[in-house]
């Protein structure tokens, strides 16, 4: 369970181009559910995702992860928690070009200090699961959009996180691939993972897998907030 208490985010604080992106968000996200943050462009969805996922710090407010306050942890601990708790799927997939599919999937686990061969085995098993076993040695730039998306999901899962965070996951996908993606999310939720997505794609917001839609506007929650 992730709790946000009166979270604010101000960019470029104190400068002429100061911008308040989040204005007091209080939200509790239940475990093992799929939650969607919905709202117009610029409403603060991405900002909120990166703050609740430990990628950025709020300007004010607190974040409590499974009863533990993580807001003021030093970078090393925060990174460690983020790595073990969250798996991120980015809008542009953000795969590293020039290296193999397998290496891309293994990357998030390198700092954990697991034996290279064990890690390799786990990565291969994940690729197998996503029907990419034959592509393990391929460079990512040769992949199709759908394959890239599956590599991105496999990479998000390599550290076996409890929470999957996806920002606009279907923005670059056609209807068929979007459907496929939502099926993967359903499967992961079935395995007990928490899913948090940001999207204004009705296909996502109205998907069967989604239990809760939180609507945002101008850095505030306008519907679906409060306790789950």
């Amino acid at each position, binding site marked *: 369970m992730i709790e946000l208490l009166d979270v604010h985010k101000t960019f470029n604080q104190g400068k002429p181009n100061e911008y308040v992106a989040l204005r007091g968000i209080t939200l509790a996200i239940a475990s093992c559910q799929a939650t969607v943050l919905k709202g117009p462009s610029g409403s603060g969805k991405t900002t909120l995702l990166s703050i609740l996922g430990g990628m950025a710090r709020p300007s004010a407010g607190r974040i409590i992860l499974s009863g533990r306050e993580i807001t003021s942890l030093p970078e090393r601990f925060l990174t460690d928690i983020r790595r073990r708790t969250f798996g991120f799927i980015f809008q542009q997939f953000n795969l590293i070009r020039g290296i193999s599919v397998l290496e891309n999937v293994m990357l998030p686990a*390198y700092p954990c200090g697991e034996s290279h061969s064990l890690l390799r085995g786990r990565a291969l098993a994940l690729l197998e699961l996503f029907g990419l076993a034959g592509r393990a040695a391929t460079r990512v730039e040769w992949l199709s959009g759908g394959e890239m998306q599956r590599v991105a999901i496999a990479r998000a899962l390599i550290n076996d996180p409890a929470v999957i965070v996806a920002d606009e996951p279907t923005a670059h996908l056609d209807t068929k691939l979007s459907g496929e993606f939502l099926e993967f999310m359903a499967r992961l939720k079935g395995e007990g993972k928490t899913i948090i997505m940001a999207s204004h794609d009705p296909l996502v917001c109205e998907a069967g897998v989604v239990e809760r839609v939180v609507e945002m506007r101008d850095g505030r929650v306008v519907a679906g907030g409060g306790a789950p």
Partner: protein
Amino acid sequence: MGGVEKQRCIIDFTLSSLLRRKGKNGALLVVYTLVVFLLASVMLFTQAIRKEAAAVLADAPELVVQRIVAGRHDLIPLDYMGKIGAIRGVRAVSGRLWGYYYDPLFGANYTLVVPEEQAGGLGEIAVGQGVARSSMASEGNIMPFHTHDGRLVSLTVARVLPASTELVSSDLILLTAEDFRMLFGVPAGVATDLVVAVANPAEVPTIAAKIARLLPDTRPIARSEILRTYDAAFSWRSGILLAILAGALLAFLIFAWDKATGLSAEERREIGILKAVGWETGDVLAMKFWEGSVISLSAFLAGVVLAYLHVFVAAAPLFEPVLKGWSVLYPRFRLTPSLDFAQLAVLFFLVVVPYAVATIVPAWRAATVDPDAVMRG
């Protein structure tokens, strides 16, 4: 356990990441190796030359007395030996016979020396490696010489001297005192100079001063003075090399600065992704550190090995213009191989460490940004 495995994984990624940018990293490696090669060549070369000089001087006498006539070195009467021998602190005095001979046939200069202990018989000579090479003489052959009064005499090569250090013995011809006097017309009763053995080396300056007072037409030369002269000659040579070097180093610094400090947009993006998927700033820096280390260590090793081959196996062809004029005798001048680890360590810190720093600093700047930057493409 974790730490080692983690570094192994990071190195693994570093290597595949280096292979990706073959062109950029290949060019960098080539230039880097070239610079190390030049620097190490100069280092090994001057070091080896200095060693040769030290070997020359190891055998040099503590104190030599020359006679000066009209400001020039002249033959010295042997009866000066009595006066010098009477000075307190002088252990022994002996006369030396040596000189230079120009061989018009081969266009080479030889150093003719009468050794202290009689080496060969009358009419026999021992020659250095360089002499043997340039005159194509081997043991048992005869070598013709022009005497001072225009006659042609033949001396037999009884022995070719072993090449312990080429600089010492290369142009050397050892012969008897009788042959020497006959060849150059040096009368009995005079010598080229006198060698003074001193009981206590600390007294050399005092004794030298006494000799100069006692025999006003002589010039005593202490070994330390010869040392200075040699040093001047050698530092002149390394000075030229140093100038070459400074140019190379400068070019490299500009090149390395450009390559290392300018992170491409692609590299920036990658650092962002690594941070976003859970790498700490320290992990990113470790990766950049390994990257710099792989490049600079390979360049260092390759450069040093190439320099070693260049100086000691190929006889430093790149430095030939600097060596020229040394003597016509050294067409195949070969230095005694030696490696000074302290100097290699200095070279290492001069080229490897700055490069490592130059790669880490920009990476550090890129790696300390918040990982969420990557979420907005």
